[in-house]
């Protein structure tokens, strides 16, 4: 028999690498002991959940109630639409100021990048709490939240689309003496437009999803009804609202998918 040098079965793992793997595994196991559901907890919780579902059935179909939540659904859509529209409009100049190589501000463009990051990284419910405190309960706080959310999302992706826009056309126009604003309108935005429309539709989808939950902290929309239903133990109302939310999100995804297909 000829002895062959076979490759090792395992990749080389250095002592340091091995230590890190063990440490991470230990942290996960210890944390699981603290927060993961135990078998006992699950066994106790399941009958309670079943009981809750039973009390939710059948969903409330009382016409007066349905009319009331229809108005709330309409308000939810209004919050999402108006918030996204205003957010998109503000995102354009913000993205221009933040986009590297396109911004007229040079290095100071990072100030706007940082602002957009701040808008994005603070969760929407936190913004909603802030705006409820500032302008009071209701849909206005919700709309303000969606505006900030949209700027955080679109500001970033619009800026990236502008940074990726074709440089050769920009250089050709700059050579003949076009200023930065002209180059933006004539070359950067047209080139970035397909990507920006896509981003805008995602923003609308996200806005509908978050406007549904904003009501939980009092910022208007259908979520407010959901919170009231749970607080007053009206579980049949709650199930009707949950179904309505499910339908809203489905319809929204269907519509934006069709729009996206139409544009491409």
């Amino acid at each position, binding site marked *: 028999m000829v002895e062959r040098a076979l490759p090792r079965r395992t990749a080389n793992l250095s002592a340091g690498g091995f230590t890190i793997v063990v440490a991470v595994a230990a942290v996960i196991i210890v944390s699981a002991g603290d927060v993961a559901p135990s078998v006992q907890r699950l066994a106790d919780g399941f009958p309670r959940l079943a009981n809750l579902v039973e009390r939710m059935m059948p969903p409330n179909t009382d016409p007066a109630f349905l009319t009331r939540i229809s108005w709330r659904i309409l308000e939810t859509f209004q919050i999402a639409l108006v918030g996204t529209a205003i957010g998109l409009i503000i995102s354009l100049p913000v993205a221009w100021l933040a986009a590297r190589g396109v911004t007229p501000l040079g290095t100071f463009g990072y100030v706007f990048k940082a602002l957009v990051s701040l808008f994005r990284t603070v969760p929407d419910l936190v913004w909603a709490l802030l705006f409820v405190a500032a302008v009071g309960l209701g849909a206005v706080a919700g709309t303000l939240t969606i505006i900030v959310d949209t700027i955080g999302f679109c500001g970033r992706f619009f800026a990236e689309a502008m940074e990726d826009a074709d440089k050769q*056309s920009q250089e*050709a*126009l700059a050579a003949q003496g076009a200023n930065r604003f002209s180059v933006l*309108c004539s070359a950067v935005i047209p080139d970035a437009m397909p990507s920006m429309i896509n981003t805008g539709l995602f923003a609308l989808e996200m806005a509908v999803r978050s406007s549904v939950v904003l009501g939980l902290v009092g910022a208007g929309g259908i979520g407010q009804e959901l919170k009231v239903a749970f607080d007053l133990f009206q579980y049949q109302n709650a199930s009707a609202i949950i179904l309505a939310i499910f339908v809203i999100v489905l319809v929204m995804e269907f519509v934006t998918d069709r729009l996206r297909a139409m544009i491409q």
Partner: protein
Amino acid sequence: MDDDFIIRTRGFSKSYQADTPVLSDLDIDIRPRERIALIGANGTGKSTLLKCLIGLLPGSGGNVTALGETFSGSPTKTQLRRIRLQIGFVFQHHGLVRQLSVLSNVTHGMLGYPGSWRAAVQMLAPSEWRIRAMQALSEVNLEAKAMDRADTLSGGQRQRVAIARALIRRPRLMIADEPAASLDPAAGRDVMTLFSKLASDHGITLLFTSHDMEHAIGYSDRIIALKRGKLHFDLPAPQVSEAMLTEVFDG
């Protein structure tokens, strides 16, 4: 005075780093209605010279008179604006905005004029500019494609749109940096023929760079050859032989 020459340089030199001149001691005269081919091996500073001649890059020594504006080093902002308004640019890459219509791309030629943001898309452009754009398109035989998107055109057609974009400025000087280099031979000849025709039809001075001997001899009145940043020869096209060109292109 102004009519004697479009561009004149005296003792012009350019260096990016001290003591390593890219271009040195150039005396160049370009008179109205001339078609000039600027040739040289890669890295001899042709593109640098083109940019310096019209003030887009600062020179390091000597002086330049371009389209009535004299400067040494950099032109003032006003001078640069006056110069640019009289020039049409065409580059090796067409530099069109792919998502926009051909007509919008041609109106882009008006950018740089006062109030020119309206040239961003043809929809917003004043009627007078749209008319000028259609005229420019008919000069390059692409009127029928006015509302097609730029990215649906062939390479040769795109370069013709780029020429129309330069032409709408009604330039006195057309500057073309390797305009045919990324086209196939037939489309390249079409583009060069079109340049020649437009230059003589409209009395435009043409200054182009080329790597193609046939283009340099066939479409110019005079050939200016650079070698290692110095003027190698400056002769009427008929007096230039293929052997002389080969020597220049080989560095």
